[in-house]
């Protein structure tokens, strides 16, 4: 579909009084992408979304949608539509009038706008509830009404502010699938703000991890998970152990770091380090039990906690200066050789499993 156009954010900054919520971020979201802005609360992801939508003024920088710079345009003239966290349905209007609201504002005659609204409600399978008020609907139904209301304007981009956070876990997973299906069938750009990495991984074509008003990494989900750019990304995405230490040796593409009061670890890395310390990430499911083949690709620690998770068992190991090093064992492997808390456990991993993390250039 051609109407999905690229969103281009060019060194956009948002300042509230003396605090900077978003600091000169630049991002290109290709047309027709499902993009997730991911980060902890207060990281600036919602401010970014609201600046794209036009509900927040941009302190400096520009937002371009397709070929038009929309920085100074009101929300309705940007070709975007926003879906609010609490859905913001008008409580005094029935579903038809809620969905037809923007058409009414444009002065579309009543029969025409009601027919169009009914069409949207049918798309969302809500036609049976057309004359109900929002309060008479369940959370999932309210969300579909909000979607219908946002989509009736044929936007080029749909902006969703934590759309699933108000739903119970079961419904969350179902609505997630519906959102993805909808985005695929409409072919328009979705920008979705969330603090759940699981949600972002399940939905996104492009994950933008934000922290402290900056973008830590913007990449497809697989890249973000397998090649986290920074220690923050590795920690936030979960399932990674981050080892931080001082660089003691860096020769022939082998970097050695020493953890304070602990062991030394190595990684294969050709870049020139820009500081005296470095962070490595090792996925929890790539750690094996056994002695290391090469010095620095493992350590021996004592098991401090065991969590059973069904298909897998999560062990927390302390040792070599690392507080909670997590490993994920398949249940079969664990129960073939059960381990108890307090036991000493040798751990190792392969050289290609060590990821050297960058630092955010502040």
């Amino acid at each position, binding site marked *: 579909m051609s109407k999905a156009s690229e969103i281009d954010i060019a060194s956009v900054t948002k300042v509230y009084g003396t605090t900077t919520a978003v600091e000169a971020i630049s991002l290109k979201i290709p047309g027709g992408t499902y993009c997730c802005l991911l980060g902890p609360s207060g990281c600036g992801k919602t401010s970014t979304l609201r600046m794209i*939508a036009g*509900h927040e003024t941009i302190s400096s920088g520009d937002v371009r949608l397709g070929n038009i710079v929309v920085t100074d345009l*009101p*929300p*309705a*003239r940007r070709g975007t*539509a*926003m879906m*609010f*966290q*609490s859905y*913001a*349905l*008008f*409580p*005094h209007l029935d579903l038809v009038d809620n969905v037809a*609201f*923007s058409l*009414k*504002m*444009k002065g579309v005659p009543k029969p025409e706008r009601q027919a169009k609204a009914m069409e949207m409600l049918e798309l969302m399978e809500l036609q049976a509830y057309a004359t109900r008020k929002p309060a008479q609907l369940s959370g999932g139904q309210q969300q579909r009404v909000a979607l219908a*209301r*946002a989509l009736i*304007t044929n936007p080029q981009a749909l902006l969703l502010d934590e759309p699933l956070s108000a739903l119970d876990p079961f419904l969350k997973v179902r609505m997630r699938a519906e959102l993805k299906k909808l985005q695929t069938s409409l072919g328009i750009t979705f920008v979705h703000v969330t603090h759940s990495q699981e949600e972002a991984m399940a939905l996104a074509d492009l994950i933008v991890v934000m922290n402290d008003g900056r973008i830590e990494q913007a990449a497809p989900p697989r890249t973000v998970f397998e090649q986290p750019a920074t220690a923050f990304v590795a920690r936030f995405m979960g399932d990674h152990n981050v080892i931080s230490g001082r660089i003691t040796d860096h020769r022939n593409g082998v970097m050695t770091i020493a953890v304070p009061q602990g062991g030394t670890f190595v990684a294969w890395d050709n870049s020139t380090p820009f500081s005296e310390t470095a962070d490595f990430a090792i996925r929890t499911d790539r750690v094996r039990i056994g002695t290391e083949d090469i010095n620095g690709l493992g350590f021996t620690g004592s098991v401090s906690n065991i969590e059973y998770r069904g298909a897998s068992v999560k062990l927390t190991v302390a040792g070599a200066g690392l507080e909670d090093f997590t490993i994920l064992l398949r249940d079969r492997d664990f129960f073939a050789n059960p381990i108890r808390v307090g036991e000493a456990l040798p751990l190792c991993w392969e050289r290609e499993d060590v990821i050297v993390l960058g630092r955010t250039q502040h």
Partner: protein
Amino acid sequence: MATITASQAASARAGRKPVRRDGSSVRLVSYLQATPLVLILGGFLLLPILMIGVVSFWDYDFAAMYPDLVTFNYTETLGSWVTWKTYLNTLKFAFLVWAITLFFGFWVAYFLAFHVRSAAMQMVLFLVCTVPFLTSNIIRMISWIPVLGRNGLINSALMEAGIVNEPVEWLLYSDFAVVLAMVHLYTLFMVTPIFNTLMRIDRTLLEAARDAGASSWQTLLNVVIPLAKPGMAIGTIFVVTLVMADFSTVQVMSGGQSASVALMMKNQMSLLQYPAAAANAVVLLALVLLMVAGILRIVDIRKEL
């Protein structure tokens, strides 16, 4: 299986409210709890109304009332064109004051709720609105006289400025003065409930309206005013009932040239025609209750309470 049933039964027992042991003692306690309100409402509301209703059927002469069951208090009241004119006049005041207080009250509340950003400032400005209530009703009414009078502030200013040659007569002791004083007295009763409803409007609704392309006016007409209706209804009930029952403002500000139902009752009472006044009161009460019922039919105020 047995353990599951046992634990279910246990949890069911734990979840249930305390078992009612003695039906009669529980009932006694609830009656006791309701007693204070029954006494107050019964003694100070129901009983007086009942008495008015009873007295309205009594006979009277210049000196005394005679318990009886006559209807001429009503036929005289309703059969006289003076009564009808007075009722119409009262309704006119009620309508004018209602329309003006609704207009000003809404905008004051709107300003307070949407344009004053900090909660502290909102509180301060709201208290400023209540300042007139720190003085008595009568004082506030009377203080209009030096402003509106023949040689009052406004007239002398107009004369000095050369805008008029003679003092404007209709400023004081006129319907204008009555309405003005009533608006002054009652606007706050409109501001408060409307402010209350406006504060409860979810601000993201306004953003959603803006996102849908609504202009400020469209947002006001399509979102804010419909959602403020319950507050407007409550304010309307306050203002209408107050104006319908007012006699002092009408008497003072019209200089005795205008009449209201309550003023008519007061005059009847000063002539010791208590049963006639009582009949009047019953008619007025019925009328006001009908008006309130009408308002409640149009707007559902239960959301607010």
